[in-house]
């Protein structure tokens, strides 16, 4: 009767029932063995990530939790609709702010917040990427607070990572608990995620520049082996069957991008770049960057190569812009946003700043352009000294911060040293946009805060991952509440 406590309570959602059966019938030793098998598997295939500023841990494993996170198909359908709407709005917003700026003229969003935003790229003003797609790959971070209540925490519209975990976590689960997955298959099925690479490949091919005739040549640009997400870059290049290139493998000649191969220069039509704007072209952005390609921006403007994602998309995932997303979605799609925004205090506004300072210990404060959970204050878990020093930072540079209430995040059963226990989770689905619209693989990266009560799920801050199962509702029909 393993894990009865965690699954016997009213808070357990129905789709967990079948997995609950499995967990209850498995001993703690068996679960621990499974967990160790999973870790060994990850170690052998070399899935690691680097933690910046930690010399002893240049290659570390992200903890993997073998209890899957389950989402019912009907719930996913609503989520999917909301994601399509949101990512469409993001693309229209970008086309607008680098083009006619209608949303600014209409007073939807303050002009200076866009035009003076450090992520707003002057190089892109008046430019249109191929097929007018700006964000080809988006990672939308969501949290769930109740039935059908998903909040967007962040939009990642630059170079979102984590999709390799979505794919590899499923591989591990298929090896560890094939009998459970087969059982679910008989009752309606678990949606596959392994179509992601193929969908991504189609997406990238669909945005090849008009000047490309014939089969487009694709490449994935990585900052190199020392990048924290290098494993993912090589993993994806492998799954896509495209070259994994570094800046030094590429050069621009006559506004055309080439890679250096053993057979001589080969033209590249679409570059899936996992390198930030700042480093991508020393002639336009940081001149000291050795990671990018001189002349690349000109090549994109000449319409000879498509960058995915386009340059300048950071302005759409800025945390200050985020607070305007409900208005942005309504303005561009003509409908209310299906996914909710977390209520956000813009510290740049004096009234909001005063309120934030007043109840700092209840809020989560984030840097507007921060990522990875760095530079963040979780008020309810902070000490007096931390609160005071953060308040000083806020007063000095209020425009750099936003604040949000802590949400009553949903939890998911997670294997801990003391057995199964609830832990907070979030979800990052990956949304692909090509010439023929938006596509989403049913699943995503579920991150879990492994420390009890913690809300921080970032891998660099001690978070772990889980496999994410979108199961058809049929499994709910076979659910027997008395079995719990």
């Amino acid at each position: 009767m393993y894990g009865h406590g965690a699954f016997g309570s009213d808070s357990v959602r129905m789709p967990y029932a079948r997995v609950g059966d499995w967990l209850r019938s498995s001993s703690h030793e068996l679960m621990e063995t499974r967990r160790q098998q999973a870790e060994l598997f990850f170690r052998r295939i070399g899935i690691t990530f680097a933690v910046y500023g930690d010399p002893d841990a240049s290659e570390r494993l992200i903890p993997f939790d073998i209890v899957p996170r389950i989402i019912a198909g009907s719930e996913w359908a609503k989520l999917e609709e909301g994601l399509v709407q949101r990512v469409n709005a993001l693309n229209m917003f970008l086309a607008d702010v680098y083009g006619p700026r209608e949303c600014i003229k209409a007073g939807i969003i303050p002009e200076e917040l866009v035009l003076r935003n450090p992520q707003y790229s002057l190089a892109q003003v008046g430019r249109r990427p191929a097929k007018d797609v700006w964000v080809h790959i988006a990672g939308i971070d969501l949290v769930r607070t109740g039935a059908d209540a998903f909040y967007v925490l962040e939009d990642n519209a630059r170079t979102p990572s984590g999709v390799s975990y979505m794919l590899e976590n499923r591989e591990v689960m298929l090896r560890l608990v094939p009998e459970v997955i087969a059982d679910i298959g008989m009752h309606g099925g678990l949606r596959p995620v392994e179509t992601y690479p193929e969908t991504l490949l189609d997406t990238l091919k669909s945005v090849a520049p008009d000047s490309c005739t014939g089969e487009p040549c694709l490449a994935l640009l990585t900052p190199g082996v020392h990048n924290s997400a290098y494993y993912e870059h090589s993993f994806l290049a492998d799954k896509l069957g495209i070259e994994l290139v570094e800046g030094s493998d590429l050069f621009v000649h006559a506004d055309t991008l080439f890679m250096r191969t053993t057979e001589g220069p080969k033209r590249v039509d679409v570059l899936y770049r996992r390198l930030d704007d700042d480093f991508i072209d020393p002639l336009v952005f940081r001149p000291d960057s050795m990671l990018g390609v001189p002349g690349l921006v000109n090549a994109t403007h000449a319409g000879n190569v498509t960058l995915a994602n386009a340059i300048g998309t950071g302005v759409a995932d800025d945390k200050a812009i985020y607070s305007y997303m409900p208005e942005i979605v309504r303005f561009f799609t003509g409908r209310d946003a299906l996914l909710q925004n977390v209520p956000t205090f813009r510290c740049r506004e004096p009234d909001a700043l005063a309120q934030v300072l007043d109840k700092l210990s209840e809020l989560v404060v984030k840097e507007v352009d921060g990522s990875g959970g760095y530079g963040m204050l979780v008020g309810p878990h902070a000490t007096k000294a931390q609160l005071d020093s953060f308040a000083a930072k806020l007063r000095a540079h209020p425009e750099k911060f936003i604040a949000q209430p802590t949400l009553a995040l949903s939890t998911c059963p997670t294997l801990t040293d003391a057995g199964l226990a609830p832990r907070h989770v979030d979800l990052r689905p990956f949304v692909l946009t090509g010439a023929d619209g938006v596509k989403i693989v049913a699943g995503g990266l579920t991150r879990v805060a492994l420390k009890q009560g913690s809300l921080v799920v970032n891998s660099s801050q001690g978070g772990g991952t889980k496999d994410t199962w979108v199961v058809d509702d049929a499994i709910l029909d076979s659910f027997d509440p008395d079995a719990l």
Partner: protein
Amino acid sequence: MLSRSAANLYWMGRYLERADFLCRLIDATVRLASLPASHGGAKPAWEGAIRSAAVENSFRETGLPVDEAHVGWFLALDPSNPSSVRCCLEAARHNGRAVRTALTLETWEAVNGAWLEIQRFGTGVPDSSTLVRLVESIKAVLLSFDGAAARTQLREPTYWFLRLGTTIERADTTARLLDVKYHLLLPRTEPIGGSLDYFQWTTLLRTVSALTAYRWVYRDAVKPWLVADLLIFNRAMPRSLIACYEDAVWLLDQLAATRGRRGPANRQASAALRRLSENDIDALFQGGLHEFLTEFIAENNALGDAIADQYLF
């Protein structure tokens, strides 16, 4: 394929081969050094190992005594000696990681495994039994790498660049090993057998895992000129210079076929193979073994450069 990937694969092949050679060198030297002092003793044995590994200068700079513990440590584990087994395996893995997509899971696991294995031995001075265990276990993981690569890699440029690195490095180490011992290989007029040098020759053969092969090929007592013949002119002996060049020519031809033309590297390798084929051990002794080996090592380096040029490394 990307030129950088080709370079990574080529160097991964070279580093792994060098690590393998160092392990065999340590193994053979431990045996030689264990003979009674009247047979040469430990110090000359380890001095020979330092010369064979071509690290005389860098070892002298450490100021360490020439004995098993210190030379063994320097050759196997010293993290600041770029030619140590440890550093070779680290470099090989680093190269492999940079071309992870070009390797099969099995090949990657083997090169990753070699690096994990050497780390188990730490970086301190090993005792005798640790050194022997190290050599055995690294030889085994490198064999598993060869097996994984041979069984699972597609026969395409990826594999050929990897093997080309192995081949060029193998020719280099075999030639250097012979050159260090060349004075022992010269034909003598005095009767052989029971000579002190006998142990030197067998050590040399052991270093390239060829002692048994020698007996099968010549069915004779170990004679120095036959040792040279085996390691230079015997096509069946996988580490002989001529076998390495047969491999190199074949690999370069495969690469040429994929791009539709031969280049300077193809021509250099073919010319070197032809010269080896037209030579034999008697002619070679007349011309001078040392001179031949010096020239061979220089030509082999030039071939390495030509490969880098031809494929835009």
